[in-house]
């Protein structure tokens, strides 16, 4: 990874997004994080349309499930069905622990599924683990 990795963070909860960004900003591999708050914006970003015409394809997508306008599962399905986008790893990062959601996401092609912990320290640790693995050890398509 030569330049700073790019992350698209899709989360409708500004409080969570804020925490996530804080962790990502203070990491060993500081990333450029773009945050959007709903599923439609996420897809516009990925397709570089509308207000996101200048967007650059992210190296990693961190995706919440329960989003307004278009929910995370729909975004996941579209991304993984699109040959131009499907190689971008998608990490589902959501409060849902439901086996149904987990099963569904893997069915739709999610690369990874991480449940948002309720506890602050664990939340930080989870985000840290995500960026540590994906940017410190995994190889991502350019």
């Amino acid at each position, binding site marked *: 990874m030569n330049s700073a990795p790019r992350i698209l963070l899709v989360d409708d909860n500004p409080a969570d997004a804020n925490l996530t960004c804080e962790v990502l900003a203070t990491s060993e591999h500081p990333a450029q994080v773009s945050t959007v708050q709903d599923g439609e914006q996420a897809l516009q970003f990925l397709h570089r349309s509308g207000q996101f015409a200048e967007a650059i394809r992210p190296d990693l997508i961190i995706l919440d499930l329960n989003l307004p306008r278009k929910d995370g599962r729909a975004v996941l399905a579209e991304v993984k069905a699109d040959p131009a986008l*499907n190689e971008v*790893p998608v990490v589902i990062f959501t409060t849902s622990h439901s086996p*149904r959601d987990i*099963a569904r996401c*893997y069915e739709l092609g999610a690369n990874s*599924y*991480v449940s948002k912990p309720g506890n602050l320290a664990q939340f930080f640790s989870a985000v840290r683990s995500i960026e*540590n693995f994906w940017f410190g050890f995994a190889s991502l398509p350019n």
Partner: protein
Amino acid sequence: MTEPIEVDILLVEDNPDDLELTLHALRREHLANNIFAVRDGEEAVEFLFCTGRFQQRDFDHLPRLVLLDLKLPKLNGLEVLKRVKQDPRTKALPVVVLTSSKEERDLVASYNLGANSYIQKPVDFDRFREIVKSAGLYWMVINQRPLSNPAQASRAASQP
């Protein structure tokens, strides 16, 4: 290696040194109780699809994680990956490609075929151990795995 019913990690690796290193690193971190290794793509497919030598296995006991090398005898890693990710019974299985290949096309092909992640094996011993440890931790602890049985999974998927 005698094969236990509950396999946490399936290692698909034909290089004995790499195999040794990986096993050592995983065991040291106590990341998995049962690690099973196969040496070629054919054996891997038989294991995961419960055929041939592994007829007595069943889809209720799929491993929790597959670490897959690409350069394998008999059937190469990409082919194994393709079969796993295209079959609904095994599609949800986390497969992490762990390979010495530096080819961009292998990387792209892997992600396109649905590999959950792709890791390049470093030459350096210590770095290798670090990578295995980190990958093991992420995929066995942080990552939520799907239910191992598609029947269970589809039951779960249809619950309110």
